[in-house]
């Protein structure tokens, strides 16, 4: 018999009441109430994000992934690590989709140490590749919040004042092994205006509560995988910029994409500047590309910071995509279903209004159900009924 790792078989694993997730609770006890509270929180989030706030457009985010022993726990399938890394891939894609001129970096912590998986960079491919590679790594020992925060801080503190400095920690363990007093570090982080948020995978840990409260971040603990995803996606949206953060004009370049065909005699294949350092990404010789308007350096991908003259290069659609953060859709008015007198149908999905409350658009007075309200605010960012009337007129 070869040595099987511990708890390899499903039937040897912990006893789980998987059916409880599906259980409906009519008596109004625990589950129902907590879910109600969660729903309220969701509403609040949508509402909150629609005040007149300044949002940080350029973000610098370090994601710390706990890779300690506890990540082998199988309460997320197939285990916490694999599940987390999968979601992280999705998160990275989504993050760059919504924040095209921002950067991200990944740190892992295990065995009382922390190390950088990827540096702060604006290229999703690199991060995704690193995440894919990390799936096979083993989970060992305890995490160290202190070391992880310290590494992130060393880089973030050099970031310019008009950008946001953020750390997001995916924390699975209930303990941390620190070489020094973490409260001192929290103070430093606060002074540097680094915002730390935590997503806990097991339970509420005191030190995280303090950490997030002091630095102005958010702290959430997942209920299950879908909730995990939801919480992670919250961090896609840029946080409100603190009023004390600097304002500055940023020079940006909008390079044109020049396409050269092979048939063109003048076209010469050239190296992209971003490929100079990375050796393993193929030959890197291409014909066309984006040329920096200032120094004519060539890049194959945007957004990027010009290696030669330091100009931020973006394309117009990138900026446009960040725009809805700046001009968000107003919150719809919530009112109880009984008081609603008009149509009993949701303007968006045409379904019958069944929830406790209905939502009315302040601009066109159309009525929506809860789900559609969330969808409109989270995804569409514009009121379909308003668009419709505009289109008609």
């Amino acid at each position, binding site marked *: 018999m070869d040595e099987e790792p511990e708890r390899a078989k499903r039937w040897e694993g*912990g*006893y*789980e*009441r998987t059916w*409880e997730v599906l259980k409906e609770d009519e008596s109004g*006890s*625990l*589950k129902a*109430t*907590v879910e109600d*509270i*969660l729903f*309220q*929180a969701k509403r609040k989030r949508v509402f909150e994000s629609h005040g007149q706030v300044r949002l940080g457009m350029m973000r610098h985010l370090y994601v710390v992934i706990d890779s300690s022993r*506890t990540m082998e726990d199988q*309460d997320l399938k197939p285990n916490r690590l694999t599940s987390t890394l999968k979601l992280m891939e999705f998160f990275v894609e989504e993050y760059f989709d919504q924040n095209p001129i921002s950067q991200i970096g990944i740190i892992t912590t295990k065995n009382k140490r922390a190390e950088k998986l990827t540096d702060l960079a604006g290229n999703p491919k690199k991060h995704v590749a690193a995440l894919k590679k990390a799936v096979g790594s083993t989970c060992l020992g305890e995490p160290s*919040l202190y070391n992880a925060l310290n590494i992130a801080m060393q880089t973030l503190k050099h970031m310019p004042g008009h950008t946001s400095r953020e750390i997001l920690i995916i924390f699975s363990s*209930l*303990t*941390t*092994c*620190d070489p020094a*007093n*973490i*409260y001192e570090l929290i103070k430093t982080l606060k002074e540097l205006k680094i915002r730390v948020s935590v997503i*806990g995978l*097991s*339970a*509420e*840990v*005191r*030190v*995280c*509560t303090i950490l997030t409260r002091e630095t102005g971040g958010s702290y*959430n*603990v*997942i*209920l299950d995988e879908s909730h995990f995803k939801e919480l992670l996606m919250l961090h896609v949206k840029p946080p409100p910029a603190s009023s004390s953060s600097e304002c500055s004009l940023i020079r940006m370049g909008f390079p044109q994409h020049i396409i050269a065909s092979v048939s063109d005699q003048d076209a010469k294949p050239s190296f992209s500047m971003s490929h100079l350092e990375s050796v393993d990404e193929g030959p890197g010789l291409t014909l066309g590309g984006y040329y920096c308007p200032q120094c004519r350096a060539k890049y194959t991908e945007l957004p990027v910071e010009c290696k030669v003259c330091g100009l931020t290069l973006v394309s117009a659609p990138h900026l446009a995509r960040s725009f809805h953060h700046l001009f968000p859709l107003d919150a719809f008015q919530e009112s109880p279903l009984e008081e609603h007198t008009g149509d009993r149908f949701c303007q968006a999905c045409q379904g019958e209004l069944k929830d406790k409350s209905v939502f009315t658009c302040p601009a066109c007075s159309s009525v929506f159900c809860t789900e559609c309200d969330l969808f409109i605010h989270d995804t569409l960012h514009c009121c379909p009924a308003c668009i419709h009337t505009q289109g008609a007129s």
Partner: protein
Amino acid sequence: MKLNIEGLLVYFPYDYIYPEQYSYMLELKRTLDAKGHGVLEMPSGTGKTISLLSLIVAYQKAYPLEVTKLIYCSRTVPEIEKVVEELRKLMEFYTKETGEKNNFLALALSSRKNLCIHPEILHANIVVYSYHYLLDPKIADLVSKELAKKSVVVFDEAHNIDNVCIDSMSVNITRRTLDRCQTNVDTLQNTIQRIKETDAAKLREEYRRLVEGLKEANVARETDIYLSNPVLPDEVLQEAIPGSIRTAEHFVGFLKRFLEYLKARLRIHHVVQESSPQFLKDIYEKVCIDRKPLRFCAERLRSLLRTLEIADIADFSPITLISHFATLVSTYSKGFTIIIEPFEDKTPTIANPVLHFSCMDPSIAIKPVFERFQSVVITSGTLSPLDIYPRILDFRPVTMASFTMTLARTCLCPLIVGRGNDQVAMSSKFETREDFAVIRNYGNLLLEMSAIVPDGIVAFFTSYVYMENIVASWYEQGILENIQRNKLIFIETPDAAETSMALEKYQEACENGRGAILLSVARGKVSEGIDFVHHFGRAVIMFGVPYVYTQSRILKARLEYLRDQFQIRENDFLTFDAMRHAAQCVGRAIRGKTDYGLMIFADKRYARADKRGKLPRWIQEHISDGSLNLTIDETVQLSKHFLRQMAQPFRREDQLGLSLLTLEQLQSEEMLEKISQIAQQA
């Protein structure tokens, strides 16, 4: 906010109120209206103190002639400070709302250095002090005897009041006490000799006074100025001090004889247990000491100490103790027992004779309080079953009620773990406590919990001995090492300094994310006085049922007495006692509505109705049938789920309207209907 409690205007210094606080005040007002006594159980952290204070102060203001004074008794100095803090808030609110200058005087007696302001008490409207000032006859006489009859007395955290009563009336005499007494007597004799030479008139004056007897005291009691002292029974007041001990020299001689007798009694090799009359008979036969002079012993000694103008009474505590013993033993023929043990049970080879003069009837000490004051309220977070307190304290309450905690989310999770994963029953009962499988399962339970509970876990064992055995066994099996991979381990010891050190480090470990386990003992210091709010106690594990050590002779005597006098069966009392301590232990974790914690009862006996039924109602109602006889695995799953649920954001708005009310919400019909269901009359 201003509340209307059945026609009484109550100023409540907060903008929000818990429904149970309102209900509590209703019951309290009914008690005061009826001028009777009450027993009220309300979970800790639901604002008992402020409800009590606001209502009674309002009552005092509204009916100044009915209730003149509030006497608030609490257990420890921090608790007293907390009461004073709340009171200050209330008074500020009064000043703000009414604009009048505050004419209320409140007084807190916390330590000896504050004790000398005695005459002030007469004028204070509120007095806050420790139980002992009212219950312990030795102190009560100094501090409390002039309190007016129309006072309301509140005993907070009163779940142990019977033990306090008993302790205050019991006397333990060792050889050391007697040796120190001997020194006292010598000092007395010398002083008398000296005074006789310098100021003989003084002693003559005392003699004259003693002949006249304690008439003054009697007059005072009849005219209702003093709280009666159980050490000074009524008959003593009507008689003069007997001739045989009237002169100072005679009295010292008498004390000497009494001391010699006690010394002789301590020179024994086997255990003796006898009643007070037996003791009196023996002392008469051996050294010809009569019952009557013995009874006057305490009073006579006090008079002598006064006459001799001895300033430092503390030095004379041993002889005072002996005199109290003499008076008590000759006064009460019932309710006390004398046990003389030549050695301690644990160390049968070391001679350490002790004379226990043990009170078995808590009602003796508290009787004067119930008789004297128009309303006495006994309250605590854990007073279940309610009906046993009136029985053992021998009084008739007009209100008895237990309040539940209204919760927007179920923040407590009591689980009864009865089996290990190997299906072996877990129990601390005598037959199985040495069982290897049981100990291993207990270890596994702690190990599994240490992996899923964040920050602090407090584990309680039934006794120090049991804890030592188990921990040693865990160490051998390597369980301890595994636990330490998850959390640090701290242990409570009988040494107070060591324990407070462990406690401090434990809190530090919880604070900085290291996580820790505190192993402690039910009935120990930690289980009674220390709160584990929020992260300091996310789970409490109770290993076994904390029965009191039943082989103790004192306990046996008391059980017998309870059976004969109050018709309370031994088993009922033992279970009651064990369950109130268990409830105290697990209650340490929940100190408010925003707090949350697991309560794990690790013994299959908890699932039985007679045990479960004795837990406070606010815990009991959260024990569902599904959480009765769990295995470790099931416990872990339920706990994980619970902890995740509780970690979800929880704000004040979520509580509003459910477990936290504004004035408008409180006044709605529907809510008043709901509130009326909170209190359950026993």
